[in-house]
Each structure stands twice: as structure tokens, then as C-alpha cells.
């Protein structure tokens, strides 16, 4: 059953390299396509979307309490809207696997400490630093050591979530689950409840998610 909660008005941009809408649908979360309006509580901006996003309206949306999801190359929009909050290091991310430390305690209890992330294509946007908290951080030695992979940043009355990896065709069960958890985390913070409570309200089987991380 799809969840129809008016407080949870969600807009999602058209898919590009990312299709976060698919992740939302996998958890029966209703959303509407983004059409240039910002009168929602959650806005998801897909990596590679062709939709026009106004940086000033995006900043206003977050300042006034909106919750924003942005993935990978759509980080360009963050640089324009919130130049003081995110420091990127170009689009030089290389294809390959990395081990990543789940820093967020609540998600770590579900996922375990370390997960493996596959970047199946190169040229992903490397985040150097942000004025917020890492949810996941690279645990690989070398060039990506300690870099944030998924972050949350508080700004005004709202929140921004950015992830370097995202939904794609050849995705591992762990990555799929982590993106589901990220959506649950966003809703949980915005609504002041736990991830488990959000999962429960959506009918998401949290035990199944836990099992997939332990396979």
C-alpha cells in the first residue's frame, strides 16, 4: 500500500544517471515529478537530470525547512546554491569498489560498520569536505581515504543530503538497501522519529534489510 501522507509531499526530478524514484517506489513512497515548483517537503534531484533547478529557490527551499536529496553530478547545483557548505574536488572519481565506513550510528546498527560500494562508472563527483556530518565515509586507503561518500548538512530550518553513489542498473543488494536507508533517514530527521519507525510506517521489512547487509 502506498503511503499518502500530506506532510510528506515529495517531488523527484526526471531520472538521469540516478533514478531515486525507483528506490522510493520500492518502499511504496508516493511522489510527484518535479515541475519547477518547490512547494514540497522533500525534493530529490537525480544525478544527470535534465530538469532546470534554480539555485536561489533551492536555497530558499532548504532555509524554510525543506529536505533536499542530491546525488553525484547534481552536486553542481549544490555548489551554486550552497557554495559555503560543500567543497568538491572535481569529477575525477574513478570506477571501482571501495569499502566504506558507516559513520551514522542508527544506520550502522542496521548495516554493520563496513559496506562495499561499487562505482561502476568513472567521473563521479568527489566530495572533499562539507560543513555537516558524514553518514558514510570511505574506508579505503589511498586517494579516497576518509573522504565523505554520503553526508547530511543542516542549513536554516532544513537539511541537505548528498550521496556520491546512487541508484543504477547493476546495483548490489547492499547499495540498494543503503539508498533505501538514506531515504528513511531523511524522513526520520524531517519528522523527528527513528529510522525504524519510518520503516514501520511504510511497511518496510527492516529485518530483510538487515539480512541483506549480512549476506
Amino acid at each position, binding site marked *: 500500500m502506498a503511503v499518502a501522507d500530506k506532510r510528506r509531499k515529495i517531488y523527484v526530478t526526471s531520472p538521469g544517471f540516478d533514478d531515486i524514484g525507483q528506490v522510493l517506489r520500492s518502499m511504496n513512497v508516493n511522489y510527484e515529478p518535479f515541475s519547477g515548483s518547490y512547494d514540497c517537503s522533500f525534493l530529490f534531484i537525480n544525478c544527470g537530470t535534465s530538469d532546470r533547478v534554480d539555485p536561489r529557490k533551492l536555497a530558499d527551499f532548504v532555509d524554510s525547512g525543506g529536505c533536499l536529496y542530491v546525488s553525484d553530478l547534481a552536486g553542481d547545483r549544490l555548489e551554486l546554491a550552497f557554495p559555503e557548505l560543500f567543497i568538491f574536488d572535481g569529477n575525477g572519481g574513478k570506477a571501482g569498489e571501495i569499502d566504506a*565506513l558507516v559513520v551514522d*550510528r542508527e544506520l550502522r546498527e542496521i548495516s554493520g560498520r563496513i559496506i562495499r560500494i561499487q562505482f561502476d562508472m568513472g567521473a563521479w563527483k568527489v566530495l572533499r569536505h562539507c560543513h555537516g556530518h558524514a553518514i558514510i565515509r570511505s574506508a579505503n*586507503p589511498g586517494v579516497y*581515504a*576518509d573522504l565523505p561518500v554520503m553526508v547530511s548538512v543542516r542549513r536554516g530550518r532544513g537539511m541537505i543530503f548528498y550521496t556520491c553513489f546512487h541508484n543504477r542498473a547493476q546495483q548490489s543488494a547492499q547499495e540498494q538497501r543503503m539508498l533505501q536507508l538514506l531515504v528513511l533517514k531523511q524522513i526520520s530527521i524531517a519528522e523527528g522519529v527513528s529510522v525504524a519507525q519510518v520503516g514501520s510506517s511504510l511497511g518496510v521489512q527492516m529485518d530483510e534489510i538487515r539480512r541483506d547487509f549480512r549476506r
Partner: protein
Amino acid sequence: MSQPAAGQVVMPFYLLCDVSGSMWVDIPALNAGIAQLQSDIMRDPVVDDLTMLSIITFADTARTVVPLSFPTEIQPPTLTSGGLTNFGPAFREFHRVFEADRVRLKSEGKRIFRPCVFFLTDGEPTDGDYAQVFASLLGFDPATRQGNARYPYVTAFGFREATAETMATITYPTFGEKRGRYFLAREGASISDVLTHIAGAIATSVVGSALSVSSGTPQYTPPANDAIAGMDGSYVG
């Protein structure tokens, strides 16, 4: 600095600094804090005679960037960041250098006070076994007298992604009257300001500890729980 006489107490302080990749933006403030710390300590010649300071950095691995020295002898380092946040190597390096420092100072006829460690980090450790490393090298059981009887006082300072749970695991001792304490930055606190305040609090702690020697009862004087602006202090154990 005058050379301390044989038999004189020396209080060794070790600053263990996280220089992992995530510290990138904080490194200038950390370098400035260390320079300020040295300046504050060496201002008082008595303190300079009684205390020695070493700086160990850690990321993927750990290394001693300032060997244990009297404050006026120290050339403040210029730290750079890069690598993971591995706590285990930091404890191994501290254990290694302190044992060597202890032997050296004893051979010079000095009496060495229990080592005091100030541990600074901005995040969660990447290595999953750091607590076991700490327990095996530095832990002590006062009931059975097993473990390292020369265990250090560890005061931990955490900011950004550091959590109370993790800080509590590396703060020491967890027993006795001189229980360790850790400090955690408040949400929204400016990290560069916090680093400045930490350096000031460490300097106050070092000076206070050194001055206790002249009272005839040397003791480690950790920063008070409410002594650092932007941080909250807690005891462990």
C-alpha cells in the same frame, strides 16, 4: 630551560593528533593551536623544567613528529592531512615511544610521572579493533594487577563526527579517583574555535599539573568538564 637535576620529577605529556583526510579543513587551526600551546607552556620557566611534550600524529599509520622534549626545545611541526582514521596505530606508537622515553629518562636519573595523553580526533575510527589494541597495550586491571601498570591518563577531545560512545572507549582510567574524562564538541560549534579552546585548555592542564609538583604532591590536573567553550566534558567509568 635549565637541565633538571637528577631525581627530579618529569611529567611527560603526549599529544595524539588525528591528521586523517577529514581533518583537511582543520589542519591550519590545529597547527596554530599547537604553536599556541607550546608558547603558553614555555612562558613559565618552572613549568618548562618539569614538563616534556611529544606529538604523535595518526591517520593510516602513526608517527612521532615531535619526540618527547622540554617545551623550549620543541620546533612546532607543520602538520598535513591525509589517510584514514585509524586509532590503533596511534596507541601502538604511543606505547612504543613512551617505553623508550621512560628508559631514557630513568637512565638520566629522572623520576617519571605517569604519562598524560591528550587525544584529538574529528571522527569515528576506521579500524574496528582499536579498543582491543588499547586494552592489550595500555589497559590495567586494579583488582588483579594485570596489564600495564604504567597506564596513561587519557583525556580525549572529539569533534565533528566523534561520538560519546567512541570517546568513552579511549578515555582512561575507568577506575580510581582520577577517572579519565572526554570532551565532545557541541552541535554547530566552530571547529577552528574549538581547536583553539582545546589548545588553551591543554596548556592550562599542563601548567596546573607542573605546578602541583612544587606542592610536593605531583598530580595530573585535567581540564574541568566545563572549561572548554563549545565542548561538554564527561567522566568515564
